[in-house]
């Protein structure tokens, strides 16, 4: 039971005994017509808007704001009782290339380089036009976020990128942007309704998306809670409903290795029902089996936690080792997939450490305190103590740290070709900070196929009338591997595009 950490899943396990048991119960539920296909036009609509947005994360709120700017009447729904989904709990890193902040720090970057990094990490499976759109519009998207009040105060490195380009929110959490987007959307007159969950899309006889069938006053995760309500969307529906990292049955369909053993960094509602509803209405899904594990989570805390913001700040400064040998096993600045695969291959958690100089230079004090307070980050006066605490062979480990410190002085790693930053210092000043690492399911690169206008592509490979997708619900932007910090620009950019286009669609009916 100790692996099962979120209350939603806990409830569902205690109810039925095991995940497989829960699957049986789900099958036994009286589902009626909901089980397949879209919903037909209802006799009566319970609510009407020009643009209906599903989801209150970065993408959904960007869509809502732009649709309001296009003078559309906007209703935003979210099945959860809190705003933002994963956007409100992420680390707040927003990658953008060629920004004034980068220039002031002497970082030489360009949209071309960012697109190249995204495509290389994505194993060139990214839809090139979508990836390039993210890179090209990233600086403008960051500026848009700043204009509505979000504040960014540092530029971080994220594994797999060529340069530092992750602009971080002062809150060290995506909530710093979500809260400003919420304020802006509300000020512009968008209506926002929580605890309303999409069950099916409504399609007209000639195949246009007309609105959605929902359950209002829905109480996650109880599917029989709430009342059925039909919401008409005169101009368009924007699905910004997130990914499905927390839907164990669904994710295992695409990657059978991702059992319940792998917990997730995501909020419990990242279960992807709206994506499935769109597929049942004729939408094409793409690259669903590329599911990302975050290599920087700690088994000593839950969810996303604080440790990712220690790890990602000290890669290229500190050292990651296999505690069985005390030696390094993979380059610390590798991309998420490379690093997560390497840790899983060890078969046990890795250990990462940095000394006081590097930690104090790089890690946000609030995040450091959070990690120390919950016990996931530990402090040691000597490398020997550290080695003993993690059952490492002391000699080889101390030798490894010395060797790494030599690489740091030369700014070159002949062992594993890790990037070493200009301001990296040899790890010699105690106390030493260390954490254990074991990957968690973090992001689903796949989702609904979209074109450059954020229109959802149907099974006939044509854009579906009246349906848009953005954010993690949209697939294909990141290919095999999403680089860290690239979700925020992708969400904002395609959310805005979806809102602009849906807002100016010709109304039906």
């Amino acid at each position: 039971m100790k692996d099962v950490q979120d209350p939603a899943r806990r409830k569902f396990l205690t109810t039925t005994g095991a995940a497989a048991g829960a699957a049986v119960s789900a099958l036994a539920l009286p589902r009626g017509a909901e089980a397949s296909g879209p919903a037909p036009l209802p006799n009566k609509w319970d609510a009407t808007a020009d643009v209906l947005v599903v989801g209150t994360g970065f993408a959904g709120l960007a869509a809502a704001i732009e649709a309001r700017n296009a003078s559309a009447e906007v209703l935003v729904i979210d099945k959860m009782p809190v705003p933002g989904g994963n956007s409100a709990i992420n680390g707040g890193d927003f990658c953008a290339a060629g920004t004034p902040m980068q220039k002031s720090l002497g970082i030489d970057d360009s949209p071309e380089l960012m697109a190249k990094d995204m495509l290389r990490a994505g194993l060139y499976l990214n839809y090139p036009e979508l990836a390039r759109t993210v890179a090209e519009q990233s600086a403008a998207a960051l500026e848009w976020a700043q204009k509505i009040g979000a504040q960014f105060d540092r530029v971080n490195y994220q594994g797999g990128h060529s340069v530092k380009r992750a602009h971080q929110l002062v809150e060290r959490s995506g909530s710093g942007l979500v809260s400003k987007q919420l304020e802006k959307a509300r000020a512009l007159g968008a209506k926002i309704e929580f605890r309303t969950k999409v069950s099916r899309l409504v399609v007209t006889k000639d195949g246009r998306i007309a609105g959605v069938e929902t359950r209002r006053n829905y109480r996650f995760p109880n599917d029989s809670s709430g009342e059925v309500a039909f919401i008409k969307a005169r101009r368009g529906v924007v699905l910004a409903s997130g990914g499905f990292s927390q839907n164990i049955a669904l994710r295992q369909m695409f990657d059978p290795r991702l059992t319940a053993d792998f917990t997730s960094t995501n909020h419990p509602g990242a279960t992807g029902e709206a994506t499935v509803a769109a597929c049942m209405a004729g939408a094409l899904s793409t690259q669903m089996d590329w599911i990302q594990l975050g290599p920087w989570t700690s088994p000593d805390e839950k969810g996303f936690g604080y440790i990712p913001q220690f790890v990602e700040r000290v890669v290229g400064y500190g050292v990651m080792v296999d505690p069985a040998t005390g030696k390094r096993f993979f380059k610390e600045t590798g991309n998420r997939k490379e690093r997560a695969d390497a840790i899983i291959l060890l078969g046990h958690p890795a250990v990462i450490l940095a000394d006081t100089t590097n930690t104090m230079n790089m890690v946000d004090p609030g995040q450091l305190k959070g990690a120390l307070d919950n016990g996931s980050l530990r402090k040691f006066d000597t490398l020997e103590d550290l080695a003993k605490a993690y059952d490492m062979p002391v000699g080889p480990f101390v030798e490894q740290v010395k060797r790494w410190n030599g690489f740091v002085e030369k700014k070159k790693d002949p062992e594993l070709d890790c990037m070493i930053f200009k301001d990296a210092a040899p790890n010699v000043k105690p106390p030493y900070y260390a954490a254990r690492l074991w990957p968690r399911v973090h992001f689903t690169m796949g989702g609904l196929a979209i074109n450059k206008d954020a229109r959802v592509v149907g099974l006939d490979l044509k854009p579906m009338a009246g349906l848009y997708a953005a954010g993690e619900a949209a697939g294909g932007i990141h290919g095999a591997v999403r680089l860290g910090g690239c979700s925020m620009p992708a969400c904002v950019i395609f959310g805005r595009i979806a809102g602009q286009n849906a807002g100016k669609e010709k109304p039906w009916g």
Partner: protein
Amino acid sequence: MTARIRSQPGPARVALSLALAALVFAVAAPAQNAGRAKLSSAAKATDCKACHAGKTPLPQQHPNIAGKSLGDCAACHAPGTDRALRGRMPLFHAHLLAGLTCASCHADAKKPKLVEADRCMGCHDPEKVAAKTAAMKPTNPHNSRHYGVKADCNLCHHQHEKSENYCAQCHNNFDFKVP
């Protein structure tokens, strides 16, 4: 149970998942109800038997509570002591004892609907609530980095079922005792 969770998916389980994929995935959690009591919207707060099937849930030696209000309870059940009422009864009892009725929160007490947090905040000013708990360790539960001071009260403070510590689903050391 751990062993079962850890087991690799066998053919049967994969087949199940296949069948499942055809459905909108449903989690079969039963609705939590308010114990065995049958709520009566006409009941007075101090008339236990009106809802509790003719039997008072109070201990036998408990003083008669007829005509008492929440403030009177505090004489024995002082907040912060081990006799505090927190967690001993569903929270709506406190609202009733303080003089509210079902309709004070649910506009239509006959067909009660989920209460919006704005309604709670009409009495419990979120800024004041946050100020009251500002010194709590390890952090203020009413002013979060993620949701500010206006998070839905009902995330944690349920009225008709056991309250929960919403923060703890990620923050294992936020060991708040939730009334």
